[in-house]
């Protein structure tokens, strides 16, 4: 997080020094600042692993948008056709994520994907209760959620 902050500060410095206040120039500054931080990250402990994180975030965004569109079409198909294919139910999902930020991020992403809605976290934070719309194949759903969680933890940890 602190690395991202420094990246933005350096990009702003680039914009101010080059005197061209446009979005493209800001992106260029962001890129150069990213390269500079990539060189610096070996020496500065707080920046450790920063350059690896941005490609992961981009990979996650691509993966997430793909899932979002796929799941949206699935729900849309069930809403638009007269017969119900859905088998809704509430499942308990064992959490690997432990901190507040991790659980918040994971449950938001799960809620954002159509077909799954996070209802509540148990008091000891072991389990996330999820309302799922398509429980035909519960094992498959659990594997998909596990994969999603793994990718999120890779970004946040």
């Amino acid at each position, binding site marked *: 997080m602190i690395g991202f902050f420094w990246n933005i500060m350096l990009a702003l410095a680039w914009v101010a020094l080059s005197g061209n206040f446009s979005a493209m120039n800001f992106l260029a500054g962001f890129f150069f600042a990213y390269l500079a931080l990539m060189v610096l990250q070996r020496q500065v402990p707080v920046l450790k692993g920063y350059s690896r994180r941005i490609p992961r975030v981009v990979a996650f965004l691509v993966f997430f948008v793909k899932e979002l569109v796929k799941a*949206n079409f699935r729900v849309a198909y069930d809403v638009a056709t007269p017969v119900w294919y859905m088998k809704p139910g509430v499942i308990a999902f064992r959490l690997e994520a432990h901190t507040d930020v991790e659980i918040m991020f994971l449950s938001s992403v799960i809620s954002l994907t159509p077909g799954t809605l996070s209802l509540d976290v148990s008091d000891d934070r072991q389990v996330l209760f999820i309302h799922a719309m398509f429980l035909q194949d519960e094992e498959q759903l659990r594997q998909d959620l596990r994969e999603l969680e793994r990718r999120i933890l890779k970004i946040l940890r």
Partner: protein
Amino acid sequence: MTDIIVSILLIAGAAFMLLAAIGILRLPDLPTRMHASTKAGAMGAMFIMGGVAFFFLDSIVFARAFAIVVFILITSPIAAHVIGRAGYFTGTTLWDGTVKDELRENYDAETHKLSSGYEGSPESVTPPPESESPEDR
């Protein structure tokens, strides 16, 4: 060419919003309605904002459309979660076709305690407290 892309994006957005509205009318119970309304609605708003950005092709409009999409992505899952949770715990009946409910047995309506069902298991040692969050996350 731009016109065609803009039209496709706008129509797709409007279609998703229409589906969200139909979903609210047709789906049988509260959680499934939340599935349709919030997510398809957010998706529709995203498509429409994409269409707006392509129509103007201006960096300021682009930044605004991007900001709107980000705010929708931040707020809509939280709204869906809170409405769904409130509805569930105030005792909304689920649809007859609901195949399983693993929450009901873990929830104590007297004390409002929600157990996980893993309290006794050896791996359920509580994780280290997250008060001191690591600086680089």
